């Protein structure tokens, strides 16, 4: 199967093997030109005007003949023995019966506005590996170079269109984390777009990641000021102000809570009666293993320090044994560990739905027993405790 890539550096594959190194720039250009005009005959005169505009008539024709012959030699015929390119006396064209795929023609054949499935759009999105025919410039071939320019504009516009559509679908489906990822991609292309910035900050807020929302605004403000010497719009400033004024459980977040589908964390708790904190430590371990680290480490350092007394976890500064962490006390009173644990649960429950399965409640150590019961009494909607035997 022949595959032609025009997005990013132009490349040709045959049966998944790259054969680009056998092709000169002019050959790649000729193939691309014919593929872009795949449904029609292209006059040789026109091709020559694109690729050998300065050559004398005979020399140009000879060049074209040679290049067509080279393609014939490099790209094998199809099963029926037919060539990829059909060449007549005055024209050439792509053989419609020759199977091949091309990212650009795939893109051209799609109307983004008509696509309604995220999967289709994501597939399309993956095609954008770079600019159209990146790195290709043919000396003295003004029309061809101009064609590249034109197609680059077309492709870039389409890329933004695709990304915008994906964002709107994710928004409709409330897939906020995925939407965030695409927003980051589009921000690289449109770094000063306030609409995207607004949406990104909003999503961080909804996901309960207030710190990330604030940081995003701050960075955006710095970029605007540095590059454009402007400030964010009043709408964006207002959103930021709201963020600053809100606590982790602001009204707006409460209101939106229902809309966010929280990720689940299932934790199986082992018990060991004689070892203090053993049960709690396995809950902390389960959280550390399953929750996003950057989110966890937003907890204040003192709280993490206290928790590290019962469970060792990795963050650059926590890589050392707890006793070697500067400012770490050799002994942490139970009340501090208890408070740190409850803080951790509160923090994690903002983003995740936690299911704690206790293997054997009877065998739990005393502190853990008390804490689990206390957790139950709090009746946090995102923390569920299940007992396999009580």
């Amino acid at each position, binding site marked *: 199967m022949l595959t032609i890539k025009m997005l990013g550096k132009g490349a040709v594959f045959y049966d998944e093997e790259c054969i680009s190194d056998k092709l000169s720039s002019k050959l790649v250009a000729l193939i691309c030109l014919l593929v872009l005009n795949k449904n029609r005959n292209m006059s040789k005169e026109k091709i020559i005007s694109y690729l050998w505009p300065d050559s004398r008539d005979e020399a140009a024709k000879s060049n074209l003949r040679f290049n067509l012959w080279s393609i014939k030699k490099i790209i094998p015929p199809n099963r029926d023995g037919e060539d990829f390119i059909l060449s007549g006396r005055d024209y050439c064209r792509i053989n419609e019966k020759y199977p091949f795929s091309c990212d650009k023609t795939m893109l051209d054949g799609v109307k983004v506005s008509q696509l309604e499935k995220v999967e289709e759009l994501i597939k399309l999105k993956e095609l954008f590996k770079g600019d159209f025919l990146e790195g290709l410039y043919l000396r003295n071939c*003004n029309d061809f*170079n101009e064609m590249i*320019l*034109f197609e*680059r*504009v077309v492709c870039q516009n389409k890329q933004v269109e695709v990304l915008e559509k994906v964002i709107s679908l994710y928004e409709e489906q409330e897939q906020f984390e995925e939407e965030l990822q695409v927003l980051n991609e589009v921000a690289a*292309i449109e*770094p000063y777009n306030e609409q995207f910035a607004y949406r990104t900050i909003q999503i961080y807020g909804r996901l309960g990641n207030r710190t990330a929302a604030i940081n995003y605004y701050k960075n955006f403000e*710095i970029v605007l000021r*540095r590059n454009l010497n402007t400030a964010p719009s009043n709408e964006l400033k207002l959103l930021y102000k709201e963020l600053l004024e809100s606590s982790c459980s602001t009204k707006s977040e409460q209101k939106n809570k229902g809309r966010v589908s929280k990720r689940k964390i299932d934790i199986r708790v082992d018990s060991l009666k004689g070892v203090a904190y053993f049960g709690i430590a396995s809950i902390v371990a389960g959280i550390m293993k399953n929750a996003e680290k950057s989110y966890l480490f937003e907890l204040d350092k003192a709280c993490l320090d206290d928790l590290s007394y019962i469970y060792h976890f990795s963050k650059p500064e926590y890589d050392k044994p707890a006793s070697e962490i500067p400012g770490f006390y050799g002994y942490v009173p139970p009340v501090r560990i208890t408070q740190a644990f409850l803080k951790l649960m509160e923090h994690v429950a903002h983003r995740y739905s936690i299911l704690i399965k206790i293997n054997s409640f009877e065998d739990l150590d005393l502190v853990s027993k008390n804490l689990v019961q206390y957790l139950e009494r709090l009746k946090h909607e995102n923390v569920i405790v299940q007992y396999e035997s009580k």
Partner: protein
Amino acid sequence: MKKEILIINGKCLSMTNQNQYDWLLVRKDVIVDIGFGEGYKKYLNHGAAVLDAKGGTVLPGFIDSHFHVVQAAINSKSVDLSQAKSFDDIGCLISEASKNNPDKVVRGIRLDAQNLREGKLPDRNVLDKYCKEIPVFLNTVEYQKSALNTYALLYYKIPFTLEGVEFDENQVPTGIITHYANVFLRESILRNIPNSRRMEAVKSFAQTLIEKGITTINAMEGGRLYSDKDAEFIFEYADQFTFDIALFYQTMDIPKVKEMNLKRIGGCLYLDGTFGARTSALSFDYHDSPGNRGGLNFTQEELNDFVLDCYMNKLQLALYTIGDRAIEQALNAHEYALDRTGNAGLRHRLEHVELPTGNHIKRAKDLGLIFSMTPTYESIWGGPNRLYWDRLGEKYQLTNPFHEIVEQGVVVCGGSDCDVTPADPLLGICSAVNHPVEKHRVDIYNALKMFTCNGAYGIFEEDRKGSLEEGKLADIVILDQDILKVKKEKIKDIKVNNTIKSGRIIFNREKR
């Protein structure tokens, strides 16, 4: 190399008092003695290298307080299009550049459509006629627009979806890039310049500075129209040059500056624009653009917040102000921040300050602000029928009132704003002394202070630099004439004979 340098027959201006010493002795990197008459003779047998100043003035090494060193250095390798009057002129210059460096991008600067017979910027088709073998990337005077040939349009990653890409009737880019797209393009091009090229450019440009007696610069780097990579480059490599560099990172990112452990922030943090583009914020209409008073880039509230943050973080802050409205805004913000924090003594600076009123000067004095000014502006733009006159009409007489500022006791540092004006302190001194408006002129001594002791004060280095005293760093410049005796208007023609940096002779005109 000898460990001692004895400078004799000089007119040594210590810049701490009005005395003129005759000689001074440098040991290692420090001035160890300075005196009158034949007192130096006791050192003749020490094996010191003797430098005969031949009656020329000996001064502390010059400090240029406003200098865009990386971009000036890179620009020095670019094609200067300021004199181009037509597309043909541009064509000749870029063709020549491409012939001289056949494999390198042709980068042109200071292109001004108003100077061109065609009255517009050349598009890619025009540029292709003169050069299509390599990318051509031309910048207008204030970097607000770019003109590219087809090769450059394909060579650089251009964000065609951004606002500011000009298209022809076939929806193909013309090569003229403005607004957001221009900012994005420029930023990405500058970011992709490898540090090795920055190093090469700055090292070769350094010779220009040394020959002009400059031993310390305040490098205004990063930020809008420049590149943060410039600031990061200076931060990393400042100690590898023959002159000292005090970095002013032109950013509002206070945490970043704190993280880098810098003591200061800002430089060209543009509160307003330029007279050239009629964007400086004035309290009256532009003479040649009725109804236009320029504009401010910040609201008072935004600026207050930022200045307050700087006070609270104890960062020395430098703000770019040109028009009187911008100066007013800066002073308001400083008054607001000082009132709330009481953090005085940070020696905050206003850069350029071209149109301050008497009231502004008085308030600046009360706030302890420093004015970092560019006297050479008066040489190139001051006086009748020049830029200030074009833009301000009769109010051209209000620009850069050095005398009044100095009289009020505000410390004035002198800078070149290189490469807007040449890196040449003596030209700056000459410009301050010969201000086109007589009442704004300062005497030579005060003009010298701008580029020596005041410059040191502006970066908290007066204990080490800016004067010729025992124990001070041996940054010294020897002129070929006695500056106090030269006709005032001839000061700019004085040559530097020797430049000594930290006790090392780094420039000797005779051995050049």
